[in-house]
């Protein structure tokens, strides 16, 4: 008998930069939605500001969808993409 284990593919939540939103607002939302500390939220905000995007979460598709929806609800642009490293 062979047992095959299959890992579910992981998905990334990518936070995208915009030129309008106040930085402290973005940091507050990232802290609130992902439970980041101030330094981690600020790091993601600056990464998105400088590079246009920051991967803020990796995990199961359903949870990733919920995170992207929440970010959109706070008017922060975000998208989902497969995590190629998983």
């Amino acid at each position: 008998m062979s047992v095959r284990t299959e890992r579910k593919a992981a998905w990334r939540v990518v936070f995208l930069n915009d030129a309008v939103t106040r930085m402290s607002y973005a940091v507050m939302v990232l802290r609130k939605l992902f439970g980041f500390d101030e330094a981690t939220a600020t790091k993601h905000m600056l990464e998105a500001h400088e590079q246009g995007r920051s991967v803020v979460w990796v995990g199961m598709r359903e949870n990733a969808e919920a995170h992207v929806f929440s970010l959109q609800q706070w008017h922060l642009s975000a998208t989902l993409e497969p995590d190629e490293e998983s």
Partner: protein
Amino acid sequence: MKRVEVRLSITAVAPLLDLIKSVADELRVHLAVPLVLSDADTELAAVWREDLLASQRDDCDRLFSLFDQEFFMEGVVAFDRDNAEPVLRACAALRLRFRETHLAKIPDDTLEALEASSSLGDLDEIVQKAFACFLFLDELQKIILKYLDPMAVEEDE
């Protein structure tokens, strides 16, 4: 968050409310932030769009409920734990919409410089008013963020 009352200038704010309301009306049918989902997710996008629009409408309604009789008599608006987050979101959505519409022709660096100086520069009259709304919504956000986290806004300055 305890209840916070903020006194605003009625003469400065009241003339902006019509334009803010007209932009809020656009947000009843347009998302402030377009969905960025793959073509494979069109069904998901359709469901989300309706839910996000409903949330956006609720938030804008909460913002406008600040400008009640008390505001027009005393110039006072009040924030508490129930309305702070919806009003913050409404301000964010409205600022994004102003940027996309009335302020679309202003380059990012010019807008940033005008914001930093809080000056109206040599903008056309209608654009000046839109920019004044844009600044006012930012001020409201700052006030709420300051009460949610007093350290947060200082880092923006």
